[in-house]
């Protein structure tokens, strides 16, 4: 296995020396590997941050995009794991959690006191691996607020490991947790497992690996060169029974009480109330990001700070040493200068917007709203061969398409990943681009806004339906946990926002620089003008846009918002603006996304997706423009008629593909049939 995330070459043993683990973390010789594990939504991240303070290292787990945080904790090392419901091979998160836990010296298992029935399954599974465990019974305050009483001593006795009540957000119980880590012991196994495990452990040498092999984990079995067992079902069932027994013995809770959170949670699921709530949420997002940040804040940062103060300063400074019209001068401080335009775009325009988007995303995640949106959206998404879970990459796509493309790994089948990645690359504008688009649409009036949104939506649905029709196989169904709604903790939300915004800058800046240099070079060599003339039949003839629009598209190949921002300087009519925005939205995703798409999907799909976006973008843009000429002309187009005609064309395309599919005698996927009914 290849080394990743190169660390200093120090004389110390590393976690990867454990044969299970490829993660490279420096661990001093006598330090214990303390692993933080738990279900999603247990407050695990708060725990990690509070226990370790500021000095956190993040490593990319080889072969995945998941980042694993680790830090020194006194003389030991604390390693975080992704939130999972159990350890096995159901997805990347589980595989990573499994490997890190199997290599642990001590596991600090954070459980949500309100959800013991769910959370203790993982606890019992970790205990069954034979590793010493400390259980932090987190959200103890919330449990008592619900009237839930938990007999901690009895739970500790029955599990056979220390159980410490904590309130992570208030830093209560941390001292006791740290103290308990030194007296962590292996706990009591699931009944009936002792003999089985002993026998299996004799064969492979380790109880944890033996357990996973018995549970039919292919990857672990392969490492030992043995056949995976077929006892998962039996072991899971016994473990579940044991957990139910534990809960019955230690938890006392009052009958149902109706809380506002529970009621609101229901409303979010029912279309009649859920759709308005969702629309309202998006409206608030638009007001904050599209109006307040994109206009007020960006006006200040982009114009007043960057354009009026920073750019003259840097131009003057560089101009003293290098002639402004020399090649290097143009590259550094010219129209598309690396030190002028690029810095202004990144810090003045993008940064405030990115922070806004990640802030809302963190709110969605921490409040428990995200899985409810998934449930609500499930019906629509089954029509395009996905399930409700895909709403998560799509929403993330509005933040950053690159990041969203990576999260499509959470989808269960190759087929779903293919459809989702295609649609992400095609029809989801990322936050940076969306911000520019929102700014440009804001001045045009409601009719054009509706036109833009509906055209993109129709393209999304038509292309999704067609892909669902032509790809073979069927998609999986939704199965998702709905955690209780809660008010997100501001500190946690801000921390997430900050981390993600920083990560974005780190990822985007080099690509911006490459793009700016390329465009400057083309401008210098006269290539830009040549390309503008060469593609004039498409830009001028078919799309009815000025010749200079080509520059925006060339910039758009590098980054989508680059392209959209390139339109800002052009003199366009309202209709031209909308058509240009539609085209640039559907046009190729940014270079970073394209790299990821090729990596994730291979050459064939990569070319299909990249080429497909070119074709669809110009076809749709031109069609809308030509329809506008028919319905009312350039100056006063009839938006309703244009949209109706456009939707009609989309419908015909869908029918056409359905007919081909039927004619070729192939089975139409089940989810597509459901929509037809």
């Amino acid at each position, binding site marked *: 296995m290849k080394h990743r995330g190169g660390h200093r070459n120090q004389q110390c043993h590393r976690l990867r020396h454990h044969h299970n683990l490829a993660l490279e973390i420096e661990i001093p010789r006598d330090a214990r590997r303390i692993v933080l594990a738990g279900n999603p939504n247990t407050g695990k991240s708060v725990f990690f941050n509070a226990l370790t303070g500021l000095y956190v290292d993040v490593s990319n787990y080889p072969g995945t995009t998941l980042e694993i945080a680790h830090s020194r904790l006194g003389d030991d090392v604390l390693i975080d794991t992704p939130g999972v*419901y*159990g350890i*096995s091979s*159901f997805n990347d998160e589980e595989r990573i959690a499994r490997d890190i836990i199997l290599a642990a010296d001590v596991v600090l298992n954070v459980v949500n006191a*309100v*959800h013991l*029935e*769910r959370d203790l*399954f*993982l606890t019992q599974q970790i205990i069954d691996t034979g590793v010493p465990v400390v259980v932090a019974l987190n959200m103890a305050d919330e449990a008592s607020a619900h009237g839930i009483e938990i007999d901690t001593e009895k739970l500790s006795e029955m599990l056979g490991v220390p159980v410490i009540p904590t309130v992570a957000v208030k830093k209560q119980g941390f001292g006791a947790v740290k103290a308990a880590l030194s007296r962590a012991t292996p706990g009591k196994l699931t009944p009936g497992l002792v003999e089985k495990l002993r026998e299996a452990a004799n064969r492979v040498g380790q109880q944890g690996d033996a357990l996973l092999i018995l549970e039919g984990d292919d990857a672990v079995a392969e490492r030992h060169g043995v056949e995976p067992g077929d006892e*998962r*079902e039996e072991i*899971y*069932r016994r*473990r*579940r029974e044991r*957990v*139910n027994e534990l809960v019955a013995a230690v938890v006392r*809770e009052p009958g149902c009480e109706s809380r506002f959170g529970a009621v609101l949670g*229901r409303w979010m*699921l*029912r*279309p009649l109330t859920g759709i308005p709530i969702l629309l309202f949420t998006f409206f608030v997002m638009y007001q904050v990001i599209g109006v307040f940040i994109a206009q007020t804040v960006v006006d200040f940062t982009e114009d007043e700070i960057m354009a009026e103060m920073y750019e003259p300063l840097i131009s003057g400074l560089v101009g003293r040493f290098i002639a402004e019209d020399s090649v290097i001068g143009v590259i550094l401080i010219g129209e598309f200068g690396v030190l002028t335009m690029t810095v202004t775009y990144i810090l003045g325009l993008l940064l405030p917007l990115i922070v806004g988007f990640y802030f809302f995303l963190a709110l969605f995640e921490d409040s428990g709203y995200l*899985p409810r949106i*998934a*449930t*609500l959206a*499930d*019906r629509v998404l*089954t029509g395009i061969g996905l*399930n*409700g879970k895909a709403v998560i990459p799509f929403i993330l796509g509005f933040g950053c398409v690159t990041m969203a493309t990576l999260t499509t790994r959470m989808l269960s089948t190759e087929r779903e990943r293919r459809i989702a990645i295609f649609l992400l690359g095609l029809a989801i504008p990322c936050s940076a681009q969306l911000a520019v688009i929102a700014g440009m649409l804001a001045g045009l009036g409601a009719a054009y806004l509706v036109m833009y949104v509906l055209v993109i939506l129709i393209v999304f649905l038509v292309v999704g339906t067609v892909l669902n029709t032509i790809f073979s196989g069927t998609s999986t*169904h*939704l*199965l*998702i*946990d*709905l955690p*209780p709604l809660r008010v997100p903790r501001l500190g946690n939300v801000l921390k997430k926002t900050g981390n993600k915004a920083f990560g974005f800058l780190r990822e985007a800046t080099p690509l911006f620089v490459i793009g700016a240099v390329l465009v400057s070079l083309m401008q210098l060599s006269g290539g830009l003008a040549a390309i503008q003339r060469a593609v004039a039949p498409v830009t001028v003839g078919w799309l009815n846009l000025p010749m200079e629009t080509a520059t925006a598209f060339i910039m758009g190949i590098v980054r989508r918002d680059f392209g959209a921002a390139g339109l800002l300087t052009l003199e366009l009519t309202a209709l031209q603006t909308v058509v240009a925005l539609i085209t640039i939205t559907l046009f190729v995703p940014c270079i970073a996304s394209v790299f990821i798409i090729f990596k994730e999907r291979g050459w064939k799909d990569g070319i299909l997706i990249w080429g497909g976006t070119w074709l669809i973008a110009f076809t749709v843009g031109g069609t809308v423009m030509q329809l506008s000429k028919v319905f009312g002309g350039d100056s006063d187009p009839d938006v309703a008629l244009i949209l109706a005609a456009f939707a009609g064309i989309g419908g015909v395309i869908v029918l056409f593909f359905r007919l081909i599919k039927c004619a070729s005698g192939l089975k139409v996927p*089940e*989810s597509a049939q*459901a929509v037809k009914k």
Partner: protein
Amino acid sequence: MTLDLVKRGQSLTITNIPDALIRAQAIRFGIAEGETVLCAEVVPAGPIVISKNKQEIALGRGLARQITVDLGR
């Protein structure tokens, strides 16, 4: 009958989940064959939400169609 035909507020016992992988995931959520659960919500033409104590999970309609349940207890 199957889970997709259940109405909101009905209590039901899960008798059969045919897919082994789904079965394993459901057990982790505390919703195994033989468990009695409550139908907390039915999204029209969409997922079914079932709850047991404070645990709630949403199942897609296509999945609910494959799961056999008994009403009442």
